């Protein structure tokens, strides 16, 4: 319980309702497990991806230890691809090594097979169960969130990305045909997570920043998919893209999500100007998750938190998954600086 007697969860949800608040939350729609949290529950990094209880406990440790305003599952990018038939490689090493998909098994749209009973497909039931456990364990205090990929990013996981990228130029209609069933599967995935109790969903279309695709192509090809996902998934939903996004942030905003999420390569003050004022238009971001969060000092972390708030973000939000090896004092600095500087700044605003 904090200011005004509202819980951390209620504050986040109030923000998502686009109401004026006196509070800047510190949370994210992406993975945020840390070694400190794994230690708390005696977990190894490699065992938290396929076991609902372990997944949930790894996720809840971060808000418990640091006062972070959310708990998020899952952690790796392969849940939906696995449902499509990809063989996921789970590493047995003690290092922090996320599962991966060594072989792209889908060659064309005809190869796409979607299981009939999605509630039992792949790890969907594990993530759903993890969400239910989180709701029971910490659901009254903090927002419980989950995420799905965007269809282009998912396509890059299951099919030859070289060909996919070239086809955006050579055969755009075929790419759209290929992405459509993936979009529908991702919508279904998001709906399952909401059914399990997720308070909000983040759509991560990570493979489509300006580093990769032209803004023109984003608008003509990716945006219709993002709009459809938004309509089907409902509120609250966040749209996230990593990399350079200043040139497409207004297109992202047009998709109608409750909030836009960006990383450190996005100039948030410029984005704020492009998308309009809060709390109608929410902008989350944009902490750099390695150079500063892992390699920097708590003072460095405080600086980027202050810069993001001054830039006009509505929530302090790491621009990517928090690296599990991030030092505990840096996570603390992130949360504490958000609390102190955020409330001071809110009073001024």
């Amino acid at each position, binding site marked *: 319980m904090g200011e005004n007697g509202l819980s951390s969860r209620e504050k986040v949800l109030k923000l998502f309702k686009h109401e004026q608040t006196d509070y800047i939350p510190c949370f994210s729609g992406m993975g945020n497990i840390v070694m400190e949290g794994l230690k708390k529950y005696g977990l190894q990094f490699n065992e938290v991806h396929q076991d609902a209880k372990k997944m949930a406990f790894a996720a809840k440790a971060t808000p418990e230890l640091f006062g972070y305003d959310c708990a998020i599952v899952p952690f790796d990018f392969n849940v939906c691809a696995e449902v499509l038939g990809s063989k996921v*490689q789970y*590493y047995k090493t003690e290092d*922090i*090594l*996320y599962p*991966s*998909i*060594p072989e*792209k098994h889908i060659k064309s749209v005809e190869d796409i097979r979607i299981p009939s009973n999605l509630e039992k497909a792949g790890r969907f039931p594990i993530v759903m169960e993890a969400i239910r456990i989180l709701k029971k364990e910490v659901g009254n205090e903090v927002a419980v969130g989950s995420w799905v990929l965007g269809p282009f990013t998912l396509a*890059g996981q299951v099919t030859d*990305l*070289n060909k996919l*990228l*070239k086809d*955006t*130029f*050579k055969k755009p209609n075929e790419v759209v045909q290929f992405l459509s069933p993936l979009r529908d599967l991702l919508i279904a995935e998001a709906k399952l997570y909401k059914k399990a109790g997720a308070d909000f969903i983040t759509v991560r279309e990570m493979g489509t920043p*300006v*580093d*990769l*695709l*032209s803004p023109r*192509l984003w608008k003509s090809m990716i945006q219709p998919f993002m709009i459809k996902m938004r309509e089907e998934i409902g509120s609250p939903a966040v749209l996230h893209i*990593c*990399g350079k996004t200043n*040139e497409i942030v207004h297109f992202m905003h047009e998709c109608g999500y409750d909030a836009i999420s960006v990383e450190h390569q996005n100039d948030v003050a410029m984005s704020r100007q492009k998308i309009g004022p809060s709390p109608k238009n929410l902008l989350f971001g944009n902490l750099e*998750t*390695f*150079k500063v969060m892992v*390699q920097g000092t708590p003072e460095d972390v405080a600086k980027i938190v202050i810069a993001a708030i001054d830039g006009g973000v509505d929530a302090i939000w790491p621009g*990517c*998954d928090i*690296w599990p*090896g991030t030092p505990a004092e840096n996570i603390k600095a992130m949360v504490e600086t958000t609390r102190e500087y955020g409330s001071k700044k809110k009073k001024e605003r």
Partner: protein
Amino acid sequence: MADEAKRADILKRLSDGVVYFEDQKVIDAANEALEVRLDPFDAIMNGLAAGMEIVGDLYEKQEYFVPEILMCADALYAGLDILRPHLKAKEMKERVKGQVVIGVVQGDVHDIGKNLVKMMFDVAGFTVHDLGADVPLEKFAEEQVRTDSNIIALSAMMTTTMMGMRKVINMIKERNPDVAIMVGGAPLTKEIADVFGADGYAENAGNAVQEAIKMISRLREMHAKKQLGAAP
């Protein structure tokens, strides 16, 4: 031997064909280069590679994006496949006898950046040992020792996998501090590359091409200095 006007015409067509991803134009120009006995190395470096440098600039200026670069790369390979077999064995020996071990680190399967860098090494006549994607970290060090390569190029596209790079760099530098190590990929910055102890860094796909060219010339200089030093 081709006269200067003919040479300029062929080089321009090779370069343009790469820039505007016109495979057939490149194929025709490459075949003509052989017919008029233009030096294949000249055609590769000042035609195909020159075109790819322009592509790198267009990417920097955000006129080209990754799909365009990939199509340019296809056009370049169309020409390279024709010209490369005609490089003379003697000439090959006189050039830098460079060997590169290249791959994407464990946990990561994104190989586009890696393939673009590999292409530039191919263009420059290096022997490339491509380990592919999702490569176990020890494998880089083993392959370097096995092949006695002088460059290792590591790629990672995800924040979650780039940490592996530091380990590889340490492993290799411990055994052989003279190996030049180049890193690249979306989550990396110059600072991270420095912290990891890398010798070269490629900011993005277009930049990787330029950085590879720079590293090759740096190695050429090192090579030239060594030869001078060895002379009586």
